[in-house]
């Protein structure tokens, strides 16, 4: 080494080349080290975990005794009684324990303790979600809940878009991660209001959707008009060029485009007038002068040449020599309608890109929700639906799913939206063939953790012959993930699913049972106090 260095020094005239050589050596060393570490770490990361000898409630209707789950890279790789255990995997015995998928609350308010206010369609639940509410999340994980849908909860009306949150292990910064930003559009028909307020609420919601439809029409009209304008502009330029070529004083020719212009404008579409955002009536004349296209769509213009007359008048006043200026006045670019953020969101709902969750409790409001869905072709899911059992046939016919909330309610407040609450709602919906899911109720941040208890109470009111003992687990896992459109990711103990797993000390329906461990994405997110082996 020393010799070679000496040689190098002797050989090299320039000191820079020596430095660069040393750089190469250190780079190689670094690379070797880096590769080595990466491989080592990679091996660690890729090392599979096997949870063995557990009773597994898959969420898909199966209960497998003494089975194992292989987790690798945050996902479930294999499940079954005789699974192939990968080389160098960690084995954890879960003998006597029961494993279920992480429970999913399809109607939660977890982490929304700050509350949301009066929003509009552009409001987002994720903005109100407190991802640092670690104690609340820990309590939820402690009861087996790993994923929650949080709506934009507000007063009556359109309240914004919902989010799906995954309760992730404490990474030091936060404990909740947004999985999906716009899971649904949240609408509340305000069943708790007086009849007249409810009428107003529904009218206002309908109007907002109608405005969105009109907004789209005005945009389409604008595109059409713009194309027409550009075509005409091109046509005129062509003509002008021709005129220049012929070099004639073409006063008569010049009039021809002016004559043409009113004909397409002459009102094939009146709706454009409302949607154009053209402003108040007092400005109408002003806009007409500047924007002939807009003018053409006014009611006055409907009678064809009428709309053209004032223009002619203006022109008569203007000096004849300013021909070019006239041309420009004539062919003003059409005005693009003002951007309408609310309508943009509502149009996504109309285009089936966004599901609409409608909270409605009274039967009349439920029927209104169905009517709204029919009118604007919305994909809706009913929330709450206290009186759904009274209109179950209508809900079944519309093929709309229902998300139920609290099973038990007070029995004394006789005149609220819950006055006809029955804990047998699910039974009547099942009989009518309505698809339903169950959440924690969407308004109480703390109720989310007792999602399992709520579902068990619902099960207690359903016919024992029609529902299995662990039906409630299926509702809160597979059915919930299907409702949220996440059935490819979570909700089942099956290969390729994310490893969201809950290890219970025994039967999950027994209140004495505790949750011992919760994995979210294969990482330990909760460990019961007093239990060893946290790392797994």
């Amino acid at each position, binding site marked *: 080494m020393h010799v070679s260095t000496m040689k190098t020094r002797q050989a090299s005239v320039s000191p820079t080349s020596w430095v660069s050589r040393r750089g190469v050596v250190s780079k190689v060393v670094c690379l070797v080290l880096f590769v080595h570490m990466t491989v080592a770490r990679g091996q660690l990361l890729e090392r599979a975990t096997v949870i063995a000898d557990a009773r597994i409630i898959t969420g898909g209707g199966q209960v497998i005794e003494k089975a194992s789950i292989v987790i690798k890279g945050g996902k479930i790789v294999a499940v079954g009684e005789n699974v192939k255990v990968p080389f160098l995997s960690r084995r954890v015995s879960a003998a006597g324990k029961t494993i279920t998928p992480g429970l999913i609350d399809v109607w939660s308010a977890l982490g929304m303790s700050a509350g949301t206010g009066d929003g509009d369609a552009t409001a987002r639940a994720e903005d109100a979600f407190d991802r640092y509410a670690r104690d609340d999340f820990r*309590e939820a994980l402690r*009861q087996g809940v790993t994923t929650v849908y949080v709506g934009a909860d507000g007063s009556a009306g359109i309240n914004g878009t919902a989010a799906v949150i995954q309760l992730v292990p404490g990474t030091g910064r936060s404990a909740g991660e947004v999985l999906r930003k716009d899971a649904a559009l949240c609408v509340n028909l305000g069943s708790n209001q007086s009849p007249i307020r409810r009428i107003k609420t529904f009218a206002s919601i309908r109007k907002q959707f109608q405005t969105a439809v009109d907004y789209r029409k005005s945009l389409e009209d604008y595109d059409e008009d713009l194309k027409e304008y550009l075509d005409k502009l091109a046509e005129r330029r062509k003509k002008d060029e021709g005129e220049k070529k012929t070099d004639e004083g073409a006063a008569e020719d010049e009039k021809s485009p002016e004559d043409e212009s009113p004909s397409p404008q002459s009102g094939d579409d009146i709706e454009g007038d409302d949607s154009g955002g053209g402003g108040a009536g007092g400005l109408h004349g002003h806009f007409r002068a500047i924007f002939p296209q807009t003018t053409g769509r006014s009611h006055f213009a409907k009678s064809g040449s009428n709309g053209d007359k004032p223009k002619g008048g203006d022109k008569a006043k203007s000096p004849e020599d300013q021909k070019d200026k006239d041309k420009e006045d004539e062919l003003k670019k059409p005005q693009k309608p003002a951007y309408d953020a609310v309508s943009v969101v509502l149009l996504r709902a109309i285009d089936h890109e966004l599901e609409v969750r409608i909270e409605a409790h009274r039967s009349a409001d439920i029927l209104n929700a169905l009517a709204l869905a029919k009118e604007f072709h919305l994909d809706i899911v009913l929330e709450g639906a206290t*009186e759904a059992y*009274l209109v179950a046939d209508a809900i079944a016919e519309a093929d709309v799913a229902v998300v139920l909330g*609290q*099973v*038990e*309610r*007070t*029995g*004394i407040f006789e005149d609220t939206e819950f*006055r*006809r*609450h*029955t*804990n*047998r709602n699910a039974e*009547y919906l099942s009989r009518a063939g309505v698809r339903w899911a169950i959440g*924690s109720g969407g308004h*109480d941040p*703390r*109720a989310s*953790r*007792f999602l399992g*208890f*709520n579902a*068990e*109470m619902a*099960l*207690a*009111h359903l016919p*024992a012959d029609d529902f299995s*003992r662990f039906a*409630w687990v299926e509702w809160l896992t597979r059915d919930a993930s299907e409702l949220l459109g996440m059935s490819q990711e979570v909700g089942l103990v099956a290969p390729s699913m994310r490893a969201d797993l809950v290890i219970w000390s025994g039967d999950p*329906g*027994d*209140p*004495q049972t*505790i949750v011992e461990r919760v994995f979210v994405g294969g990482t330990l997110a909760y460990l019961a106090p007093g239990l060893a082996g946290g790392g797994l």
Partner: protein
Amino acid sequence: MFAPSISVPLAGLFVAACVVGAKGAAGRAQDSRVSPEVIVARRYMTPIGTLSEKQAITIASGKIQAIVPQEKIPQEKNVVHYGNAVVCPGLIDVRSLAGAYGNVVESAFPVDPGASAIDSLDFHHRDFRRAVASGITAALIAPTPGNVVAGACAVVKTGGKIRGRAGSVMRDDGPLVFGFGPATWKYDRAPTSRIGALTMIRSVMDKARNGSGHGRLRSFVAGELDAMVFCDAAIDVEGAIRVFGELLPHVSVVYTGDDYDVVQLLGESQVSAIVGPYSFSMSQRTLSMAAALADAGVEVALAGRMPIEGGLSLRRTASLAVRYGMDPASARRAITIAGAKVAGVSDRIGAIRAGMDADLVVFSDDPLRLDARVLAVYIDGIRIYNADQQLTMSAGGRDD
């Protein structure tokens, strides 16, 4: 000529149909009111709150006669089998307001020992049917604790021989209700403060010890009548311990706070505690209180507060208490025998033991499990609720 010959068989058919229909109806009515002599199920709840297997319960004239091994069931008896079910004593809600509407207190007089909750009861209220359907067979109805001495509780059975009506009144002079928290202070009459309320209680108790004042107060200071004290905070518990002194074994404390300082105080003072109802929105701290008190040796009775909470509230409270650390046997006792003790009727209800009233609930599983169904309810040995016959619901009503 032909007309009668046709109409006679038709009339005959009609009469026959009526008879068959009436018989059917009568048969069903009888069926829903069976009075078996033996009830058999896989498990039953013992007086200490555990679940025991393979026993049968024999009933005679509305009372539990004996608990016998299943293989020793007398052959000739009328036996009802419930398969895998669990038979429990009827549940007791110690803070119920079933059938008692409005303000169950007359706030004009701060010391009102003569007031009786029984006077505000509507025995025909549908709350009682709901209570029965939830497995609650007895309710302690307390006067609203808006007075320093608010009056006497009523203890009633929620069902009986007459359908849709509350059953027998077990006590119309149940525990005497005391309070000295903010709810008892009024701006237009004394007391206006905690110190005033405690002074007033000491004063009336002194009078009673000297032989004057209302009979119920005199009975209480003589140790013949129990008391219920409403305490919202630890300071109220401390006040109760100072004021009642040697009478504490006859006092039960309704504690709604979440201050753990009271656990040791209550544990040392021999009082029983009434906790609950527990709801899903309560903090971990509150939900752990029942377990902490039970661990400190306090006899805990859990409250459901039906109908302010739903009928399942009592079991939900017990279930949550267990999930937050309460021993299951204590929790089962807390919704049965412990309530009976608070109500002063533990010699008649609250446990499956020879000589007790045959008030029984058949659950599909352990009543602490919220997925357990109520299959049948017996009061005084008569089946007054049967889940199989509850398939229809009146449209638009909450009568479930």
